């Protein structure tokens, strides 16, 4: 069984991710087991997927719109977001939208070209699980969560930006809320 990073620990991954064939056509759904299916498969075979035994997850590619699954989020055991290349930063916005706008509380997993140097910002944007690309050591990568001890901005990890937390810590002499 493959391992992933989940909630800052290295853990076995019970999920099996289905990828389309190279020509874009969809694979057959295995009869049993926990599967993460592409968005198009979810959209095309909702009833069938919901009826089968085993848990269900969905994965979005970086160009896909999280709004398309906003109504269905409670049905998924995991939502994964693909990073085709690590410099493709669309997934960071997708993560925030899933958490902050659509209220997704379950496992949010980064997949694809993922390695230690993205982990800090990905976790700020709401990702709590990471399937690192091949050849990466997940144990070594855990240190990345400690790269920075603070952040200025509002994010999923720190909903209140630093300036609001500073104000709460010592409100003296500051006006406004």
């Amino acid at each position, binding site marked *: 069984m493959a391992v992933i990073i989940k909630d800052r620990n290295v853990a076995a991954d019970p999920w099996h991710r289905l990828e389309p064939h190279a020509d874009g056509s969809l694979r057959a759904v295995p009869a049993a087991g926990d599967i993460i299916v592409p968005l198009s498969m979810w959209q095309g075979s909702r009833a069938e997927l919901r009826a089968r035994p085993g848990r269900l997850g969905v994965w979005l590619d970086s160009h896909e719109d999280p709004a398309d699954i906003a109504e269905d989020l409670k049905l998924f055991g995991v939502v994964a977001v693909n990073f085709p290349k690590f*410099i493709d*930063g669309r997934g960071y916005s997708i993560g925030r939208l899933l958490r902050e706008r659509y209220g997704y509380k379950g496992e949010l997993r980064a997949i694809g070209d993922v390695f230690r*140097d993205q982990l800090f910002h990905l976790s700020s*944007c709401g990702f709590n699980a990471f399937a690192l690309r091949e050849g990466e050591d997940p144990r070594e990568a855990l240190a990345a969560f400690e790269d920075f001890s603070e952040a200025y901005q509002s994010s999923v990890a720190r909903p209140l*930006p*630093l300036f609001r937390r500073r104000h709460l810590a010592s409100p003296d002499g500051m*006006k406004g*809320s």
Partner: protein
Amino acid sequence: MYVYDKIDQRLVDERVAQFRDQTRRFLAGKLSEDDFRPLRLRNGLYVQRYAPMLRIAIPYGLLASHQLRTLAYIARRWDRGYGHFSTRQNLQLNWPKLEDVPDILAELAKVQMHAIQTSGNCVRNVTTDHFAGIAPDEIVDSFVWCELLRQWSTFHPEFTYLPRKFKIAVNGAKADRAAIFLHDIGLQAVRDAAGSVGFRVIVGGGMGRTPIIGHVIREFLPWPHLFSYVEAVLRVYNRHGRRDNIHKARIKILVKALTPERFRTEVEAEWAHLKDGPSTLTEGEVRRVEARFTRPGYLPLPGGDAAHAARLAAEPAFAAWAKRNVHPHKMPGYAAVTLSLKKTGVPPGDMTSDQMEAVADLAERYSFGELRVSHEQNLIFADVRQAELHALWREARALGLATPNIGLLTNIIACPGGDFCSLANAKSIPVAQAIQERFDRLDYLYDVGELDLNISGCMNSCGHHHVGHIGILGVDKNGEEWYQISIGGNQGLVRPGAPAALGKVIGPSFARDQVPEVIENLIGVYLELRESEEERFVDVVWRTGIESFKERVYGRYHQRQERRSRSLAPA
């Protein structure tokens, strides 16, 4: 000068440690070149034509004298004893060793400096008016808003891998000295009828290979919404900007493709979700940041200094410098001074470590220990007593920093060009020098009057050629260096209300040794056509169009070609 608090300092220190580890892993073969490249770029480190290049951030161009001393020390210890001030108010070192960069960054961190996000596809150093805080036409002190944006953009987790680089400029005065119509986002401070501060938001401007004047997408954004609105713009861009073609990935291409109106609709729809959320700025935060800026302890002075006036009358050389390089100040008895880094014979924007240290001394004695870097690649002493201008002038002159050419033809903006940069098609610095040498006669320069001449070594436009009154662009023709010339550009800088404009190309490009003569011809046409001395070169181009300029240049060139082919023809 903004003074870091403990958290500001800790974040910069943690960044140094992070990059040290990334460099270690790269050198140990654990990070590939492809993986390391984006990581080093966002720490300012390029690999250039001959060596790495490190771009050090000078946030919004503001620098303390002790920081300048550190820059001098770094340039001497880890480089070749000089640095290059860029058009984005940063400092570039052209010869550091990759393995030394973590130590350089650690040295910078000791004086509250860094190279964070000076490159890479992220939000870059926020730039502004080099007269912020002192300009008589000030609306707000833009430094405070720039620092707020610096903190907001530093390691912003969502916008760390954008489709392309992203540049924000803030202008807090009536005149646009920050080229806000030529940035990914331009913010113009405005006050509403009640006097409340807000920003006019301009998006999608830029230079590069597709120069575009930005579009106003919001006339008045009340200041508390600054972060949430900019986040909405960036989220739309991050999600929908093109990533398939590096030349079409800037936000200006997205704005153009969607149309500014639809882009605005998308931003407003996104903003509807973010508005009034936790990113909403508070008065307390604005005041906190404002209070962390040290302020000059101005003396109450009368306006006009009599001795100063007498020296101006008695010393023409001083008067010439004062006319070009001294600028008005909102406090009576004070003035701002430009130290010109455009002396003929020195690459524009270059400065030696010795000069940096000498300037740090001068800044302490004459300008409260602070200075600014202008996007025209000069240094500004913002707070000089009028009574001390003469003494400063004498000292600056001894250092070779008092060339009285601000606003004139020889105050050339130029990128490092093909001498250093691996992107360049052609060299910039020798062209700048040839032009400076041709026009070294000050009387003639003064007669020609205000003229911005900008040179870029390639389409990336780091030398801002699109907005030069005369712009020169290095192009590659079958492996040879040629120069395309445009006229009529304007960065919207000098006069309030003067619009930003892109220059028009006058015709086929020229060999390097032809360029000075072409410039002389263009200026000849201008001098013939101008109606008064107040009418600048660019005004004449706008009034008359480019035809007469073209005829003069290509007519003569054409005739010469004919002569040449006749002389080469067999008898």
